[in-house]
């Protein structure tokens, strides 16, 4: 027999921490079980490192740097994390389409927990991606030149950048509501911003009009900060600039995503 009659309607609802943790665990489980997600988190980042190093690396000469991989890796991490973050938008749109969000919204938990649980799981994935890329890079000659403290700070900053991209894609996913469209909408900005930044080539090699844009591009700041932390050199300015960008984007995307979530429904 099922005990159906409500035994404890006065039961305290789950805390925000518990509910966020529960949703995070659900998303991490999916990450290890959905083949496309596994591939996106493992094969794609390694492929990016190898492709850009070997297909591109011979043609790019960065002044004052003997190996392109040293220049490339901190930047390509931003690109890989940006690509990966589009999955945050795809996933939330899929949850909307499949009815998971309806299930969550019928439960006594906040929308913040559902969204934060998504972003937290993606942050864990991003940490894995960063470690994997550092490993792949090291195998083909990349070295941290500024010591372990700076290297760890770089990893943390990379994960922070990923988290901010995730919130941005979360908002996109909630706005477009269609998984395929969310994927495309998430990829476009990152492709445009990456290729018009210092991620892959030094800004000085670009035509003048593009240099102005590239210098104002937040991805230039992010790649610059990671590069400084990995290779040495003045870190304060690019790191502060990056953190300012991150804080600014979060200040807009988190409230907008939460508000959007409240109104987003499947039907």
């Amino acid at each position, binding site marked *: *027999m*099922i*005990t*159906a*009659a*409500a*035994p*404890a*309607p006065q*039961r*305290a*609802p*789950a805390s925000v921490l*518990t*509910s966020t943790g*529960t*949703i995070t*665990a*659900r998303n991490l*489980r*999916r990450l290890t*079980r*959905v083949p496309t997600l596994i591939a996106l988190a493992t094969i794609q980042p390694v492929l990016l490192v190898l492709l850009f190093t070997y297909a591109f690396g011979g043609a790019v000469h960065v002044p004052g740097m003997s190996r392109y991989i040293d220049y490339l890796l901190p930047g390509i991490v931003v690109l890989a994390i940006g690509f990966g973050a589009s999955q945050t938008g795809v996933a939330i749109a899929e949850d909307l389409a*499949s*009815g*998971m969000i*309806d*299930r*969550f*919204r*019928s*439960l*006594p*938990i906040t929308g913040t927990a559902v969204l934060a649980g998504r972003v937290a799981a993606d942050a864990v994935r991003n940490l894995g991606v960063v470690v994997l890329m550092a490993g792949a890079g090291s195998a083909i000659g990349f070295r941290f030149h500024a010591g372990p403290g700076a290297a760890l700070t770089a990893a943390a900053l990379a994960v922070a950048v990923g988290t901010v991209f995730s919130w941005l894609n979360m908002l996109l996913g909630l706005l477009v509501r269609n998984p395929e469209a969310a994927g495309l909408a998430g990829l476009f900005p990152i492709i445009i911003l990456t290729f018009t930044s210092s991620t892959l080539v030094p800004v000085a090699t670009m035509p003048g009009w593009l240099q102005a844009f590239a210098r104002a591009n937040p991805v230039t700041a992010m790649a610059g900060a990671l590069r400084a932390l990995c290779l040495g050199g003045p870190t304060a300015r690019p790191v502060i600039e990056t953190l300012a960008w991150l804080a600014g984007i979060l200040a807009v995307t988190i409230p907008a995503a939460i508000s959007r979530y409240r109104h987003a*429904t*499947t*039907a």
Partner: protein
Amino acid sequence: MRDAAVAAERLTKRFAGVTALDDVTFELPAGGVLGLLGPNGAGKTTAVRILATLLAPDSGQARVAGLDVVAQAASVRRLIGLSGQYAAVDPFLTGRENLVMIGRLHGLGRRAAHCRASELLDRLGLIEAADRQARTYSGGMRRRLDVAAGLVAAPLVLFLDEPATGLDPEGRLALWQLLGELTAQGTTLLLTTQYLEEADRLATSIVVLGHGRLIASGTPSQIKARSGGDRLEVTVPPGDDPGPVARALAGLGAGPSVVDGVTGRVVVPVADGPAILSELAARLAASNVRVAEVALRQPTMEEAFLALTHQPGPGTALPEPAGNRPAGSPGGAGQAKRRSP
């Protein structure tokens, strides 16, 4: 209104120019089972979504256990369970993981959530598949997991949106039995269905919706009586003209018969099906017509809907006809020839 487990008062909801719900009022006492009945697009799902706090009405008010579903949504969510078309389970989690997750989100401790999951998996016959991912489940297993998900918090009110859709007859019977047990223990149930038979089987009261409007409400027998009772269906062999059969049956039914020349079928609404079978046999024998098949069945949703839209407005309960199906006998009278629509 205060005592009702679920109360909808003048609910109206529009989507981009389409009125999904138009001034709909009904209520369901605690421990009751309400069947929201209607064809596709009638507004059933919209009503459930409003009552389950997923959607705010444009106007009107809805309450669950006296709590407003908009202003007190968080409190309402602690009292309800939702299962159905759209409230999903995660296909990449196992059955057990799905239920534990929902238990944790309801505020159960880790151990309590595992216990509750095991209890429900066992009761719903899913214990052997408990540790398989839900995407490997059959449609029936998936639906049972979905019902289990709605039951995790032992809700005061369980909303079931088209619970039997996609189930085979056996699965449907098992589900109905389970829902019967739940109501016997005091759970208030609100379910939507397209099938009069299902509403009749489970519900203590029925609300019929069509194009967002309340068309009729009452007990199952009142609704059935107002939809013209059972249907007698006589089919002639292929190629024969059903006309003579229609003439032989004239005046036998409770309303005008419908003759379909293509299928060779004559459909007659009858208030008391089993009682007229002997009269039917006599008339068919006397008129010397050939008959391929005779069947007695409940009206289809379309027939009931058509009949109800020609009835006086809601609130006019008609007297229950004599000879209706005895309460508590599942198949009811006329079972031998009864077919589902």
